[in-house]
């Protein structure tokens, strides 16, 4: 479903990503880990079209994504959440989901005159919104302004927003950041449910090892823009390259005082 070949991203003098190659199938859950600055968010930005790769190709369901506008890529079925929650400050929870459904909503002229046909479509959309919000436990807050929700609920809304249009690939950028352990457990369960129910593929960037190891049957490790490991949690945990990337190599004088 998703194929990345020899992908690279260069900003002026900095090679943020280099020689990235991997494939992913429908319904897979993939974790991406790596030290800070490894290029994980850049990777997401490449996938969603915010950056155009300076080398290589990104293919999604047979279509080359290079150079497509971000909203087109979103319409093709790749959506994301953000490291810092980016909600629509002035919209209510319900309206946020409605906004996400714009690609399948009535267009300008029928909305302008509120024609009977568009009213019917709107009613259908609203029922879809209801279903989604209830699934994620946000129905009670539907009229509240998105920005007034608690942090955990805001993250939840961001995920709900991403799911509104039945995407095929969901990119979660550090969804557990700032969450309590209980919230993290809930998040893990939610992601598993979503994946099972909607059959979507998920790529998740995270720093919480337990969450990643517990959730993802396959993990990618990035360091300094290069992929240094790709495999199941056990092999990643014991991979010497991974360990040294996170902890560094011991230096000459390190153990002298011990």
């Amino acid at each position: 479903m998703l194929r990345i070949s020899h992908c690279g991203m260069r900003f002026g003098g900095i090679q943020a990503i280099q020689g990235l190659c991997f494939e992913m199938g429908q319904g897979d859950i993939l974790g991406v880990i790596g030290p800070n600055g490894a290029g994980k968010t850049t990777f997401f930005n490449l996938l969603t079209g915010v950056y155009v790769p300076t080398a290589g190709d990104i293919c999604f369901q047979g279509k080359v994504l290079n150079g497509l506008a971000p909203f087109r890529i979103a319409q093709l079925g790749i959506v994301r959440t953000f490291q810092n929650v980016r909600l629509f400050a002035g919209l209510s929870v319900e309206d946020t989901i409605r906004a996400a459904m714009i690609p399948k909503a009535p267009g300008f002229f029928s909305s302008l005159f509120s024609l009977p046909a568009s009213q019917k479509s709107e009613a259908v959309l609203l029922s879809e919104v209801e279903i989604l919000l209830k699934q994620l436990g946000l129905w009670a807050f539907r009229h509240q302004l998105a920005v007034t929700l608690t942090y955990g609920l805001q993250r939840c809304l961001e995920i709900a927003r991403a799911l509104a249009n039945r995407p095929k690939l969901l990119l979660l950028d550090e969804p557990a950041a700032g969450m309590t352990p209980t919230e993290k457990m809930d998040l893990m369960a939610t992601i598993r449910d979503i994946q099972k129910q909607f059959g979507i593929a998920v790529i998740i960037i995270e720093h919480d090892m337990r969450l990643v190891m517990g959730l993802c049957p396959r993990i990618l490790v990035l360091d300094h823009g290069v992929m240094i490991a790709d495999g199941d949690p056990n092999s990643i945990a014991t991979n010497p390259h991974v360990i040294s990337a996170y902890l560094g190599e011991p230096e000459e004088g390190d153990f002298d005082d011990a």
Partner: protein
Amino acid sequence: MKKYKVHIGMGLALIGVGALAFLQPYIDPYYLQVALYLGINLILALGLHFLCGYTGQFSLGHAGFMSIGAYSAAFLSLHFFCAWPDPIRFMLSLLFSGFVSGCFGWLLGLPSLRLKGDYLAVTTLGFGEIIRVVIQNLDVLGGARGLGSIPKWTGIFPVFGLLILGIGLLHFLISSTYGKGFLAVRDDEVAAQAIGIHVTRYKVVAFVISAVFAGIGGALYAHLVTYITPSQFGFMKSIELAAMVILGGTGNAVGVMISVTVLTVLPELLRGFAQYRMVVYALSLVVVMIFRPKMRFWERKKSLC
């Protein structure tokens, strides 16, 4: 039937206005003029408010669209379809003015896509000025001397009828799912892109809509004052319009209506003190800006209005 509540409401309001229109000949001409000015300003402010409050862009050159509407309508009324009945001709002129200013709205909307905040404001200002200068140099439109003998077709029904229509249609648009896109683009473009919203198109559509409102307002204005010159649609006019919208508060249509009413009627009341008029106007602008209570709690630093 509940689904058509607003449609019915609009229809009733239009009938009400139509009834009022019959009384038109009996109303004192001065008050009538002020009322019509009020209605026209409301239409103009509505369009600008939509652009600013609902899509987060701004225009300090809206008088430019107004003049485009005024001149295109006047041109049509003066030179074409002379044998047709007046109401039809007026309607055609209004439609034409909306269309032409909409086109220019599209033209201005495109470069505006890359600009934010102050830059956008000044670019629109520049656009307004360029329009003014161009018209000044077009003899076919009367040049600096202006265009006169425009038939006085503007009355209660055209002005307030169109106002009601405008309010109703905008209401439909904003409450629809499509309409939420404008707000999303205003609040966070990047997030909007990420969920498949065609940000560019929304921004341009917003410009076009507000331009159409301004153009029709301008056409109504032209057929009220019967004589238009480019200097009537200069920087000052744009500032007046902008002030009306800003002072009314954003996202707050009622507030805008109040401020438009105040700002239209006040100069009339101050007519006796003509020279002090502008100074009082300017002073109140500054004072209100400084002491205005925050309208909405979510006024973020990034927002423009």
